[in-house]
């Protein structure tokens, strides 16, 4: 069954767990550096290796970042919370338990607003955000496929073991209907933007800083109880998230159509085919024997600290969009175009440098975007917001008109210098010399008596027909406003 058909027949419910690796200088529970790269098993202490006798101590910055994330998601920050041990054996888990938080997360009950491609807003209910530590990394050696099955042995590097993760867990997301896949990927993208805005993580999907586990279940109708879900682990790009959800919805629907049941299990996503495959069924073995971590004392974030952190929160991307749309007076459509083109920051900085919002938008989405497209270069590499603002300033001062400004902009993008320098160097400034302009105007009036008659008759738009010859005579450097004034003065005067 295809996704499109599946979605007509069944109501999908999704749930997403996002893990983000925090960009603290050290790991969560020990002073080993949290850096990407370096030789294997060098960013480790006795604690990150789980040596006998080693003990954890909580990284204050990790807690701070977790609280910031919680606040940004609109969560309540716990008055008191504890770490817990999640017990399970695995070679890349040095202590054979993961220090996490179980029923006492640092942040609970928030929401994230996501904006879909066409501007539809969707609210994702967040159940919790909690701190935990990452595991080491296995490299599988031997075996034909390179995947775990069939591998002869593994090599383990514990450099990543103990790095702080914040896991954000949603409540079941209902009501997405056919947009389930889009909602899922947009949600993770929105979180990624929030992490970056908070400066708590580099949040690079391709480096595994942000990882998502996607739960999908289907039910007959929105009134029906939740169906059996599958959890597709470690889906690590926005596109993959969308594909994984689509695949799971189609796969589950196909099974249900054939009268088969859905097995509650973890599944693996395969980038190459866009398919998921069965991992391991949930079983009684998933008994993690959580209990409060006795080696760590409770966290009691003071309300003062929480409020201090709240005050430092930068404006989040969605808030910023809403605020700027209001201040600038742009329509939703205009804002969405700006955001989708990735020009929000550039325009904001241009406005901050003194330009009017409408002019900033016009230049960035128009000529700059066109040049970028033409040169196949990002807009940010062509010109700076300060240069665009300067260009707009020259127009407002009457030194450039739009046509001349385009020439200046092209030259600036080619690296010829700042707008004012280019204007002077290329002698592009609007002609101030009234004599030359008057001569051009006189010539145009003399050559176009019929037009003059029309203007006299009150057809003001006919002035445009005189502007062409005037501009031609002045090599485009005439100030259109002044020319118009002169024409009217001469005809009526």
């Amino acid at each position, binding site marked *: 069954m295809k996704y499109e058909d599946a979605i007509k027949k069944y109501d999908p419910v999704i749930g997403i*767990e996002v893990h983000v690796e925090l960009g603290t200088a050290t790991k969560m529970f020990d002073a080993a550096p949290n850096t990407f790269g370096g030789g294997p098993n060098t960013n480790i202490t006795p604690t990150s290796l789980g040596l006998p006798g080693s003990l954890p101590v909580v990284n204050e910055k990790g807690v701070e970042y977790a609280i910031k994330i919680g606040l940004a998601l609109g969560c309540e920050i716990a008055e008191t919370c504890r770490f817990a041990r999640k017990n399970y054996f695995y070679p890349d888990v040095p202590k054979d338990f993961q220090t996490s938080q179980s029923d006492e997360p640092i942040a609970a009950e928030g929401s994230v607003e996501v904006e879909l491609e066409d501007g539809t807003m969707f609210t994702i209910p967040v159940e919790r955000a909690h701190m935990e530590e990452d595991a080491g990394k296995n490299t599988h050696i031997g075996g034909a496929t390179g995947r775990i099955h069939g591998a002869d042995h593994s090599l383990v590097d514990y450099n990543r073991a103990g790095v702080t993760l914040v896991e954000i867990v949603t409540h079941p997301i209902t009501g997405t209907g056919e947009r389930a896949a889009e909602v899922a990927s947009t949600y993770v993208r929105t979180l990624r933007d929030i992490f970056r805005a908070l400066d708590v993580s580099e949040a690079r999907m391709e480096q595994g800083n942000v990882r998502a586990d996607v739960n999908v279940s289907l039910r007959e109708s929105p009134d029906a109880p939740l169906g059996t879900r599958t959890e597709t682990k470690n889906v690590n790009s926005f596109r993959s998230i969308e594909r994984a959800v689509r695949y799971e919805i189609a796969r589950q629907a196909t099974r249900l159509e054939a009268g088969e049941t859905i097995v509650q299990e973890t599944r693996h996503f395969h980038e190459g085919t866009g398919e998921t495959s069965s991992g391991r069924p949930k079983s009684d073995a998933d008994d993690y024997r959580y209990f409060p971590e006795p080696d760590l004392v409770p*966290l009691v974030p003071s309300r003062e600290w929480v409020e201090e952190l709240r005050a430092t929160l930068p404006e989040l991307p969605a808030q910023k969009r809403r605020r700027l749309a209001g201040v600038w007076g742009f329509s939703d459509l205009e804002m969405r175009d700006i955001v989708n083109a990735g020009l929000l920051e550039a325009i904001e900085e241009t406005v901050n440098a003194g330009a009017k919002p409408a002019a900033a938008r016009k230049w960035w989405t128009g000529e700059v975007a066109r040049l970028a497209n033409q040169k196949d270069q990002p807009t940010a590499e062509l010109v700076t917001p300060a240069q665009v603002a300067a260009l707009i300033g020259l127009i407002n001062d009457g030194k450039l008109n739009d046509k001349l400004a385009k020439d200046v902009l092209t030259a600036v993008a080619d690296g010829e210098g700042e707008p004012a320098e280019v204007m002077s160097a290329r002698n592009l400034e609007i002609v101030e010399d009234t004599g030359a302009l008057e001569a051009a105007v006189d010539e145009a009036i003399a050559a176009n008596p019929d037009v003059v008659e029309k203007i006299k008759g009150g057809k003001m738009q006919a002035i445009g027909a005189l502007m062409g010859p005037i501009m031609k005579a002045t090599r485009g450097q005439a100030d259109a406003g002044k020319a118009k004034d002169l024409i009217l003065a001469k005809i009526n005067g």
Partner: protein
Amino acid sequence: MLGQPHIGPFRTGPAKRLDLLTSKQTDERQGMTESSAITPEQVEHLASLSRIAMGEDELKSLAGDLSTILSNVARVNEVAGDDVPATSHPIALSNVLRPDVVGETLTSEQALASAPASADDKFLVPQILGEE
């Protein structure tokens, strides 16, 4: 994330019951005092959870030991009511935090000196089945 599936976003906390372990279907707050006999099969499950290979004799003898111990300690369930808070840490400290400053680390040589097997500065472990 860490190689094992978690209970997903629909979780309400750790699962509250593992029937495999109950030799007798009883309410949690009663029932364990009189007869909390543990069977060798239950011990086998616990041994598998704790990754200890055990033979039949060991399972049997441990089942006996556990039954004795549990029948003695099961009364803890009857002593304290819901109004008594749990104490996880004997001395009440809170907010013990460490500044985010890099400290001394081990070299890979130090880390691997006691390793049963290693290669390429990494710990060499037997093949891992079933999970990513």
